[in-house]
Each structure stands twice: as C-alpha cells, then as structure tokens.
C-alpha cells in the first residue's frame, strides 16, 4: 500500500507538471489538429488532377464522353477552347489536355452499331504534363476507365470481364484509413517524449537521488513515472478521439468503441514504458528528445503507418513482426473501420508484453543508477 501511495504521488506530480506547461501541451496538440486537417483535405483532393477538355464538336456523344470524364472521379474536367487549354497546360493549371475528335468517333460508333468490327478505333488524344511517372500513370488509367465505360454505354463489349471480390463490404476512404495510424503516431510521440523527458529531468535536476533514497522499491518509482506519462497520453488520446468523432472521420459502432479505447490506452501505456526506458537510459534532455521522436517515427513507418501494410517491402513486413505499432494499427483499424475484433486480444497482448518489457528494462536501469 505504501508503494502504491508513492506510485500515485509520482504519477500525479508528473501529470501536474505537464499540465502547468502550456507550451508543451500546445506543441503536442497543434500538430495533431494540423495532421487531421491535412489528411482530410488531401483525401478529398487526391488523384483527381484537373484537366482541360477540348471538344471540337458539341454532339450529344461528345457531351456524354465529357460527362463520363467528370463522373468517373478520375479528373476534374473543364471544357475550354484549344488556346486556353494550351495556356492552362503550360502554366500548370491543368495536368493534361484531352482532345475529343468528334467525327472519327461518330463513324466508329455507327460502324460498331452496324457490326463492322474491323473499323479503326477512334483516337482520343491526351497531351499531358508528364512531370513524374506517378501522375502520368494516374492520368492514363483514368482516361482508360472513361474510355471503357463510355464504350460499354455505346454498345462495345470489352474482351475481358473482371469479377471483383472485395475483402470488405465497402471501400474505406483514404482520410479514415490515414487518420487511425496518425492517431497511433501522435499517441506514441506524446507518450514517449513526455514520459522520457519527465524521467530524464529527474536526472538533470538531480532529484533522482532523492527519489532513490526514499524507502520505496525501484519498480514503484518506474511505475509512477509510467502512470504519469499514461495520464498525459490518455488526455491527448481523448482530444484526438474528440476531433475524429466531431469531424465524423471516425465513427466506430458503439459495440466496438471499448475495443478502440482499449487499444488507444494500450498504445499510451506502451509509449510511456518506452519513454521511461529511454529517459532512464539516456538521461540527457537533448538526446532523449531526439531519440524518443526518432524511435517513435521509425516504429510508425516500419509498421506501415503511412501506407497499406502490403505495400511495404518484404524485409520490412518481416521485421515489423517485432514492431508493437503494427499490432496497434491493426487493432485500431480493425475495431474502428472494419467492425472486427478478430485478433484484438492478441494485438493487445503484444502491446502489453511490450509495456512489460519497457517496465522491466526501466526498473533495471533505475536500480543500476541508484547503486551508482
């Protein structure tokens, strides 16, 4: 009981110090807001480059093609005159100019309708700013989609029929998918940095000696530090969740909410344990800050936080088995976006094991420091 009182006192002291530092709070929360805002706008914006459409003919067929260009979602298409199109392309206001030749098209359409398959295909010209391979591929693919869809509405039968089988009932939006790993990153950085600094400052301020001379076991000191960091991270997690829920970017089913909250708390706990371990080992403010941030970011990127896991190189996929954030992201995405708690216990267990390892390492380091 006496040890628990010590744990509570240390935890509350660290939490109170953090609360008294508005700058530390603001620097943790501002990037969070920025991150959410940018993720949201980019998701709205992504993969829809603006294009200029030059339609030399205003037949219904051409208008339908332009309408397909717009509705497919691959472009933001605007019909303009040829001179304006060239100017827009040169001045980087559009990514490409698509020219629709009306006459050839009509001939082709009539030929197809009449069953003459040997008639040469109409040619849609795309003049693109092929600045980089990625954007060029996006433009080509989007035009291909429009052509196929338009062809089908005009009576053409594609030689290949694709039967798509999706893993989930509906696609998950980029904003939703990116927000959750981002949330894990924010919690990780906040937890590791704040706890790491709270620990190393005990060494820098030499108050650590006083703590170790107190008649309490080392694990109680470490646990107090971890709990203090956990409280801080919990507050930040609540803030991030509030933003996500208010903006509507995350809306887990009520039944899966506890799983999501549990995962967030476990991330905070694991981060706090890692923070104490780093703070107690390094003991120097500058190094603790840089190491904590870098460690968090590396773990995040290696866990596939910035892309879908399958996009990671093979060696990283194998390496990430030892990365706790991989399990955190998986659990959070599963419970919040997919409504699935399959494997949740396993993921939470990995996070708990990581936290225990952090606690053990920290206790060991604190004991050695106390002896020294």
């Amino acid at each position, binding site marked *: 009981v006496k040890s628990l009182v010590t744990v509570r006192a240390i935890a509350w002291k660290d939490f109170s110090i953090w609360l008294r530092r508005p700058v530390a709070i603001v620097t943790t929360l501002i990037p969070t807001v920025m991150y959410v805002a940018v993720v949201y706008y980019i998701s709205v914006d992504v993969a829809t480059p603006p294009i200029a459409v030059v339609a030399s003919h205003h037949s219904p067929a051409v208008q339908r093609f332009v309408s397909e260009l717009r509705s497919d979602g691959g472009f933001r298409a605007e019909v303009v005159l040829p001179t304006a199109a060239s100017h827009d392309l040169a001045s980087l206001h559009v990514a490409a100019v698509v020219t629709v030749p009306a006459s050839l098209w009509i001939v082709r359409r009539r030929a197809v309708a009449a069953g003459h398959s040997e008639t040469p295909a109409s040619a849609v010209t795309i003049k693109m700013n092929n600045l980089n391979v*990625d954007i060029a591929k996006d433009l080509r693919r989007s035009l291909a989609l429009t052509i196929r869809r338009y062809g089908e509405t005009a009576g*053409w039968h594609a030689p290949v029929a*694709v039967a798509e*089988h999706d893993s989930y009932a509906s696609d998950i939006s980029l904003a939703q998918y990116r927000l959750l790993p981002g949330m894990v990153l924010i919690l990780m950085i906040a937890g590791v940095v704040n706890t790491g600094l709270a620990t190393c400052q005990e060494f820098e301020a030499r108050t650590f000696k006083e703590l170790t001379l107190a008649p309490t076991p080392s694990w109680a000191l470490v646990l107090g530090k971890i709990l203090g960091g956990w409280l801080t991270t919990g507050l930040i997690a609540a803030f991030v969740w509030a933003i996500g829920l208010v903006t509507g970017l995350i809306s887990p089913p009520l039944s899966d909410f506890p799983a999501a909250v549990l995962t967030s708390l476990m991330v905070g706990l694991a981060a706090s344990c890692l923070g104490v371990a780093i703070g107690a080992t390094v003991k120097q403010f500058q190094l603790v800050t*840089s190491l904590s941030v870098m460690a968090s970011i590396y773990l995040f990127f290696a866990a596939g936080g910035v892309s879908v896991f399958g996009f990671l190189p093979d060696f990283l996929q194998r390496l990430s088995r030892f990365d706790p954030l991989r399990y955190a992201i998986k659990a959070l995405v599963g419970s919040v976006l997919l409504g699935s708690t399959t494997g949740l216990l396993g993921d939470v267990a990995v996070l708990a094991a990581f936290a225990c390892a952090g606690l053990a390492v920290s206790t060991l380091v604190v004991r050695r420091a106390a002896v020294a």
Partner: protein
Amino acid sequence: MVAEADGPVAFLPGSRPQWRARRRSGPRGLTAELGAVVAVARHWIALGVRDRRFLLVAMLLPLNYMFLFLITVINGNQAPTALVVADHGPYARAFVRSLRSTDSFAMRSMDAAQARAAFIAGRVVARVTIPAGFDREVVRGHAAPVSLSVDNIENDFVDDLRRGMDQAINRFAAQRAPGGAFMVQQERDLHHRAIAYTPYVMVSVVVIALMVGGLFYGGTAAAREYEQRSIIDIILAPRSRVSILLGMSLGTSIVAAPGGLLLLTVVAFAFRMTAASWLELACGCVLVLFLYAAVGVLLGTVMRQRNGLSGLAVLVAIPMLSLSGAFYPVSWSSPVIGTIASFFPTYYANAIFQHAFYAVRTTPIALWIDYVAVIAFAVAMLAAGTALMAHREEAA
C-alpha cells in the same frame, strides 16, 4: 538543468533605462553590427561543436528523415499483386503483358494456394486470377472472365487498381483481341521523359529534411539560451536585435550545413540524382538552410523551452511534405490546398529544388518569384524574432 522559463523576460536584471543605456553603449555603425553577427554566429557554432553528441544527432537527423520517407515511396505506386495464370495460351499471355505494361501492379506469379496465403496474410494487396479457358472465351468473342480480389482497405490504391485493370483491358483489346478496341489513347507528353517516382519525391524529402534540421537545431539552441539564461548577456549586448538574430540564424545554418551536405551526397549516390544546375542547387541549399534556421530560432524564442520542440518539428514535417507538392504540383490540388500551401515556404523551396535538380517547374509562378518568396519568408522570420524580443523587453 531546465529552468522555469515562463513569464516574459522576468530574468532581465536592472531597470528598463539601464538596459537601454547598456544597449546604446559601445561602438555604432555597420562594421560593429557585422562584428556582432559574426560573434553570435561563432558563439553558436562553438556551442554546437562542443556538444558532440548533439552535433551528431543534428547531422543525422536529415538523413534519418530521408530513410523514413523513403519507406513510403520505395514501392512507388505499384500495388503488390499475386498473379495466378491457369491458362497459358497466347491471349492469356498477351493479357498478362498488358497488365504488366500498365505499370500499376507489382506482379508476383504464384500458384493459387500461394496467392491465397499471401493475400490473406496481407503480403499482397490484390490477387489476379486468369482462369483456364481464357483463350477459348476470347476466340469465341465472349468476354473472358478474370478474377480480381482486392484488399479494399483504402480506396485510393483500390481506385488505381481498378483503373489499371481497365487500362490493361483497353490495351489488350487494341493489340490482340479479335473485336479490337472501341477507342484508343494517343499520348503526347510535355517532357521528353517523366521523372521516376522516387527521385521526384526525394527532392521534397530533401527540402523537408533540411527544414527539420534547421528547426531542430535553431529551436533547441535558442530555447537553451533561455533555459540557461545566457540570453540575458546576448540581449543586453549593445547591438541591434536584428544583428543578434542574424548571427543566431547564421550560426544555426553553418552547424546544420554538414547534415544537409551529407544528405545531398547520399541522395546523389543512392538515387543517382544529378542536379541540372549545381549552382542553383547550392543557392537553394543556402537559402533553405538559412530560412529554416531563422524559423527555428524564432520557434525557440517563442517557446523558450526545449520541451516539445522536437515533437513539433517532426510532426510538422508530415503535413509539410504534402503541402510542398511532393507528389505533384500543388496547383493541381483544390484551390483551398493551393491557398494553404502558398502560406508555407516549403511550397516555394520545393519549386526551387525541383528546378535545380530536373529543370522543371512545379509552381505556376516564375522561378525568381520562388526565390523572392523564400527570401521574404526569411526576412519575415527575422523581423518577427526582432519584434518578439523587443516586445519582451518592453513587457518586462
């Protein structure tokens, strides 16, 4: 030891007239001010060099960033896809060639069981199966069935996959299918050759890495002056505040420069990136390093404590990478994004670096305006720092 730094310069000794008198004493003139700039810069360089471990961190930080962001772009935008081909006829082979030609899939040929296992384990994000009888259906003029399984966890890459399939079908129809294509795409490119995805993004990564280096070192060094109260001696020096801040920014740039050089060297060798104009690249580096050193110094002056600075520098880097136009010109984004991006210097800095590396333009404005914008941001940062220092003295 970390001192409590809250409250506006409560640590300045003496009364306001005394500080002013001290500040106005000593020699005046441009030479004296330049001397102050050099003295402060030397002081900061000495501080940086003395703390070897910190210097090492500051040097490796930009490089770290490069590796981190590299992970995100290493696969380009090719979706890792398992390919199962159960028909080895000419049409099936032609369709596989069409699929590969779209450059949308990182295809790995597997048997059905391997593909299923890889897909379930999440090692691939899609599985394409060309069944037996594909050729027979094509010859008959029927639509040949192809199965596409997609891990549709994020709609951006799923859209790319679907469109990639459409492109493959169109190409297959145009080249091999008996009925031919309905319509074909004729492409004309503005540039002789498109820049590969990774080298293109790496330019922005370099800019962001330099930004993080400047913010981290400038911010930490400035905050440390406040925490250790050594800022008192600097502020009370009989020199203008502009000279002091200029010296701090210059010192930061010089300490951060080796990290930047190391980064550029690694990038040049690892990705075989050669600058179209080395002179432009050098100018860009100097400007960007100085700009972010000034931003870092301002940040440290605002915060007056190192706590939270690193996190801020790191977390700001991720949105800044997107807003700089790392993946495509910002002018192709929505007007809202374009407007937001134009308020950040990374937008202009990225344009300068893209032009230096590849001689391409990524902003719709003239190149000289990009340079002017970066310089203007640097001047604005110095001005803001000067005003802040003056405000604190007045408030005290």
